[in-house]
């Protein structure tokens, strides 16, 4: 059909499609672009020249953002997010493999126990979680964030990886075992190396979730030196500091995530949507 006839209909459909998409792309894209543009403007220009390009590219706002602690916050968020991903990759891949390949009493029941808690997000249990962190003396440590984030990310990760492991043909592991591998050997040497896409989807999704989380950080971290990015940003704004540095901070917080997203879109979207679609 395509290219066979270019009637009025096709032109109208095409115009409507591009019109609608372009409109939406501007509504989505412009505020993000604007955030970056504002970060290069002087305080005076931010108010006088709201829409346009900055007249000169000022880096002062970024210098101020660094002074206000952004580098520290980025470092903290990186440690927390990396720690979370590490815990999840270890815990979820082992558990998902067991759920996928072993017959044992309680396989289904345990699996559904993990899945069921997906309906109770972190926000809904923040108060008892805080009490647990206090009694374990974990508040004001990286672990106060890493361990709960990992626990919260486990169910969806186990779900995703189990689906992935289910597709790996049994013959591969049989062959490994004939060659003298143990269960773990087969998992470690044969299954994991071909599970890159599944592990990447889990890692990226959980990294970004940890990078962006606010509620738990609000209650578990009081020490300014341990603030994560969302916590730090939120405090800048509450303190009503100058806005130029705030825009610079927002850009610094967002750019890494957008770069990762654009480069690894496929994994990203798979991680974010697989649970929803297969569930």
């Amino acid at each position, binding site marked *: 059909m395509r290219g066979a006839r270019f009637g009025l209909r096709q032109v109208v459909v095409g115009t409507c499609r591009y019109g609608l998409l372009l409109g939406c792309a501007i509504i989505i894209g412009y*505020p993000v672009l604007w955030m970056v543009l504002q970060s290069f403007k002087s305080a005076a220009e931010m108010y006088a020249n709201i829409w346009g390009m900055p007249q000169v590219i000022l880096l002062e706002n970024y210098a101020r953002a660094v002074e206000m602690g952004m580098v520290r916050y980025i470092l903290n968020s990186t440690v927390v997010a990396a720690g979370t991903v590490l815990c999840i990759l270890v815990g979820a891949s082992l558990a998902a493999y067991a759920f996928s390949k072993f017959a044992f009493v309680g396989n289904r029941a345990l699996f559904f126990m993990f899945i069921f808690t997906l309906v109770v997000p972190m926000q809904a249990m923040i108060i008892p979680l805080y009490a647990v962190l206090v009694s374990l003396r974990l508040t004001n440590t990286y672990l106060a964030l890493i361990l709960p984030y990992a626990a919260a990310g486990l169910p969806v990760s186990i779900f995703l990886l189990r689906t992935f492991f289910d597709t790996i043909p049994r013959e591969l592991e049989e062959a490994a075992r004939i060659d003298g591998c143990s269960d773990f050997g087969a998992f470690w040497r044969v299954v994991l190396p071909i599970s890159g896409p599944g592990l990447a989807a889990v890692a990226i999704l959980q990294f970004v979730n940890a990078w962006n989380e606010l509620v738990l950080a609000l209650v578990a971290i009081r020490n300014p030196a341990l603030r994560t990015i969302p916590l730090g940003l939120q405090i800048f704004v509450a303190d009503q500091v100058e806005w130029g540095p705030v825009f610079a901070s927002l850009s610094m917080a967002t750019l890494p995530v957008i770069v990762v997203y654009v480069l690894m879109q496929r994994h990203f979207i798979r991680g974010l949507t697989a649970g929803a679609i297969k569930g």
Partner: protein
Amino acid sequence: MGAAVPQGLTTRRSARRTRLRPFLWLLPALVLFGVFRLYPLLFGLFLSLHKWDGMAPMVFIGLANFWEAMVEGPLFWQALAHNAIYAVGTVVGKNVLALALAVVLNAEFRGRAFFRTTLFMPVVMSLVVVGILWSWIYNYQFGLLNNLLQMVGLGAWRGAWLGSTTLSLYALIVVDVWKFFGYHMVIYLAGLQAIPPVLYEAAVIDGATAWRQFRHVTLPMLRAIVVVNVTISLMGAFNVFDLVYVMTRGGPNNATNVVVLEAYQQAFEFYKLGYGAAISVLLMLIVIALSVAQIRLMRGERAEEYN
């Protein structure tokens, strides 16, 4: 759901080893999950029956916290009503926009990947960043929105969006839709791509218009996906916190107070942790009831499809 039938790897091994081994594999996940997910969940139920300021020993007070939330003060119901309005606004807004754009994107044309990438972008951004950014867009004097209205000659419509008791909740709904509709769009897109083209070919042969194809082929085939998207957005609406906390702190005059924020403030600003936990338990029950209803709906419809 993928088949949970365990593979036959186990047949060659002794039954006993098979019974215990898997738990060794599950151990790290179970410990993490047990301590930081399952235990807090149960501890929350326990806490909701106590009076606790976070320091002094807890005092058992039965259902008094629930009584306080549901009978004495209006704040819980007011917050829940805000969540309900928020849910209607975001669920409808996200799903209509997402489905419409997914249908538009579900064709081959130049620039498709660019548009998909752009529309999904806010999903990966932090809610704190989005909240601060939109606080500025809504700023009365220097914000993009009022300046845009001024530019197109609608200066009279300029508003103090977040400062208004009537508008602020809707202003937040718009931001939530802006951030998340791309997520639902991608799920719809995956659903659309799973519809066999044969169905459309048959519809075309029968002379169906584009709208009738959408109504009688696309929508019925997407039913399960619609339920998933509605469930996810509904749960999001009842658990909303970050945007409200960053943009309005529940104000002005409690106009945007929502249940999670109410629980947070009671617990961590007024040191009524038991009361906050009780509010969270109520919310949890509501959310579970809603999700179960949705899943029932989906199950029922799936069964219908197979008949």
